[in-house]
């Protein structure tokens, strides 16, 4: 938990080729309404673009939204690109269409939060506030 009363910065990104971002936008708006600053980069982001944006924007949190089913392939590449840049102190979460059976593997990769379709955005907000850590 953060003690200091600072503004959380969150990158919401859509890796892969799926074309619509309704869900990502709903989450972005909810986080804004909870007082967070959301950097929204649009659809079709490569792992390099996501990691580079996370670095330049010095975000506290990276949230990935995915509907295409390519999460097991794309998520590790995002993490590898983040590590390559030394961005290792961000809180990771993801949402979208993710089969129950894949969740343990995704958590193993380092995603602390995995949220399926229809998640109450208040749960995501509470999760972020609870889990974000102080920057070093």
């Amino acid at each position: 938990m953060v003690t200091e009363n600072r503004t959380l910065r969150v990158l919401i990104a859509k890796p892969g080729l799926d074309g619509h971002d309704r869900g990502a936008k709903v989450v972005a708006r909810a986080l804004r309404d909870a007082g967070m600053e959301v950097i929204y980069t649009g659809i079709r982001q490569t792992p390099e673009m996501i990691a580079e944006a996370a670095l330049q924007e010095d975000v506290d949190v990276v949230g990935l939204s995915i509907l295409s089913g390519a999460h097991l392939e794309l998520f590790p590449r995002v993490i590898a690109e983040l590590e390559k840049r030394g961005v290792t102190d961000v809180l990771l979460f993801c949402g979208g269409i993710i089969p129950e059976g894949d969740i343990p593997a995704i958590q193993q990769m380092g995603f602390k939060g995995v949220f399926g379709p229809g998640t109450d955005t208040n749960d995501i907000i509470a999760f972020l506030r609870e889990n974000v850590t102080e920057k070093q």
Partner: protein
Amino acid sequence: MQPTELIERVAAGDRRALARAITHVEADNAAGREVLAGLYARTGRAQTIGITGSAGVGKSTLVAALAREERRRGRTVGIVAVDPSSPFSHGAILGDRIRMQDLTADGGVFMRSMASRGNLGGLAETASGVVDVMDAAGYDVVIVETVGAGQDEVEVATATQTTVLVTTPAGGDDVQSMKAGLMEIAQVMVVNKADIAGAETAAMQLRALLAIAPARAWEPPILMTVARNNEGLDALVDKIDAHQDYLRTSGHADEERRALAEAQIVSLARAALHRQALETAQGEGILAALVDEVAARRQDPRAAAGVLLEAVRKHWGRG
């Protein structure tokens, strides 16, 4: 990372340190002030450009196109894009990167999104700090995008040397009602979206407005662009360069530098005073008590402002 390490690493071109230094400057904390003081000697080398205009005129698209043209000319580019915070939640959705996607992969470009945070007129202060950090990090050109809407944004223009005011053919009324201050601070005028009808008319309106404005040693040129297709950017960069040359070489260069320095000092001091005064008033519960009085119409707001000023004066007299 401690401020001393941040200073060294920013100076050495470390992008992660740069990103973290900006975070501190934005938070206006002790580390941020230390970093700025430590880097200041390295500033003053970058060309600094402000891009301002109403929401939707294509500023972000234009900034991206401008950055591409600067890169074509072999210059590295730092970008700061400022968007308003929600007055209700103080949160923000910062979407300017959407228009700059292709630049993310370019190691010669560093782009940062910033929310105005609506904090007591301190936006100009913060923006000029972020510009200084990028300048010290060695970027040849630093571009600041702001929504030109209020006093804060006019002051942000003092953070950059060359201010470009962006309008569109559809923005005729917009130009008419444009804050007088904004016209005066612009050194280059752009009619963007010149692919849609009415661009010539919009340019004519601007020309007419300039004709009745007080004469200036630098006459702001009026250009047309289609930012979405990277059209007109060559001429825009030429004009920005010309203004920068003018700043360096004309007989007025010194005068303008002094005017800019004065505007910068006054605006920074104003923001700091404003913040300190409100902190004092809030800290001692004075403001809340006055708000009660005025809201109930027991006291008039001018008298209340006087009481607040008196309290601040006493407080500072003690400190």
